[in-house]
């Protein structure tokens, strides 16, 4: 039955794919491999860390969003158009809200990657931060301090993920995962 409706989505999908090719090319560079270059270019202070975090989280969010955009139920778009929605209305009132659950899910994944990037930067040459403390503790054989830093890292990641989930449920209560 759906084959009858397919052409309507093609033009929107091709827009996503064009942007997608550029993003896929950049995404192919592993974030860890970028660390020395970013620290050289932006320094070991907060700017360098920020650049690494952005580099690390943009791509998982993009990939999830891109895949979700390709898989939006076309009937939602047809329904909107048959209710009088313009192209802009379809994008703003259907496509963007339909992407929210995927974006929230990918932000949760990106939280872990963001912490990974921070720690990688701190291990590679910072003079402060949990990664730096783990590295220094390793040099002086202080396993207790290393474990303490790891526990704090785990807690921070867990709490950030919890906060993202809570905020998303407040902002978008309909995106709550449910049993089908």
């Amino acid at each position, binding site marked *: *039955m759906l*084959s*009858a*409706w397919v*052409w*309507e989505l093609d033009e929107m999908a091709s827009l996503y794919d064009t942007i997608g090719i550029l993003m896929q090319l950049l995404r192919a560079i592993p974030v860890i491999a970028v660390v020395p270059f970013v620290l050289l270019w932006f320094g070991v202070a907060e700017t360098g860390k920020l650049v690494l975090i952005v580099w690390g989280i943009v791509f998982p969010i993009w990939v999830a969003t891109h895949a979700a955009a390709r898989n939006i*139920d076309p*009937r*939602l778009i*047809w*329904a*909107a*158009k*048959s*209710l*009088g*929605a*313009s192209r802009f*209305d379809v994008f703003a*009132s*259907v496509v963007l*809200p*339909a992407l*929210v659950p995927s974006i929230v899910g990918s932000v949760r994944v990106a939280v872990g990657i963001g912490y990974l990037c921070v720690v990688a930067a701190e291990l590679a040459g910072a003079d402060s931060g949990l990664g730096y403390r783990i590295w220094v503790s390793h040099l002086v054989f202080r396993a207790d301090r290393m474990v303490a830093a790891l526990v704090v890292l785990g807690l921070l990641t867990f709490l950030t993920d919890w906060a993202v989930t809570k905020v998303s449920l407040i902002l*978008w*209560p*309909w*995106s709550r995962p*449910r049993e089908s």
Partner: protein
Amino acid sequence: MKELEFRGVSVAFGTPLSPVFEQMSFDVERGEVISLVGPSGCGKTTTLAVLGGFLRPSSGSALMRGVEIRGASHERGLVFQEHCLFPWLTVRGNVAFGPRMQGAGKSEQQVAVKEWLKRVGLEGQEDKYPFELSVGMMQRVGIARVLAAQPDVLLLDEPFAALDTERRYDLQDMLLSLLNDRTRTAVVATHDLEEAVFLSDRVFVFGTSPKGIREVLRVGLPRSRQPELRYESEFTRLKAKLVELVRAEIRSGSATPVGQTVAPT
């Protein structure tokens, strides 16, 4: 002038191109209710897609009041088998969507929401999200959403197929009450032959070999129909006749049997 017209419409899909139907022509008067029945794959949904402006015919033209249909429009509202409500909007937001897209102000939107939720028996549910509703309630909201956009034509694709018999009867009665004033035209694709007779002025029986409309059953029952009509002898006779027409189509082609829910009594 006809409300809807198919003039020699052909539609083909796939590689190599396989025709869904060829050179199909029919017309629909304003206020008329038409049902499309037939074996699976016979082109019922494709016909709705062309009428909705979501599918361009390979040849021929589809017209509304003499003007060629070239894209979707709020003049032709779509009701899907599965409600297809916007999950991020409340019932109020879903029903107000059409008026909002057409530039209605907040107060006008609220008037529309209030009126149509009352008409479909869902007052007091305005602030619920679709996931908080039953399947039947969601389908009611879907119908209210379409009607709030004030379409002249309703296109319904197996609108009640996902419902149990009791809810289906309930929604058929409701839909009929909304169509009784003959201000709207409706085209309903359905596998339910009883539903086709109950709702329609004419039933188009599609075939698969050759493809297209093979028979037209004129339902001469009065437009203002009550639920009890289903038990009257004339209704039963028409239903049995339609079942026979569809079975003849299935026998004449190698089609998958229709998902028939009603047997002749």
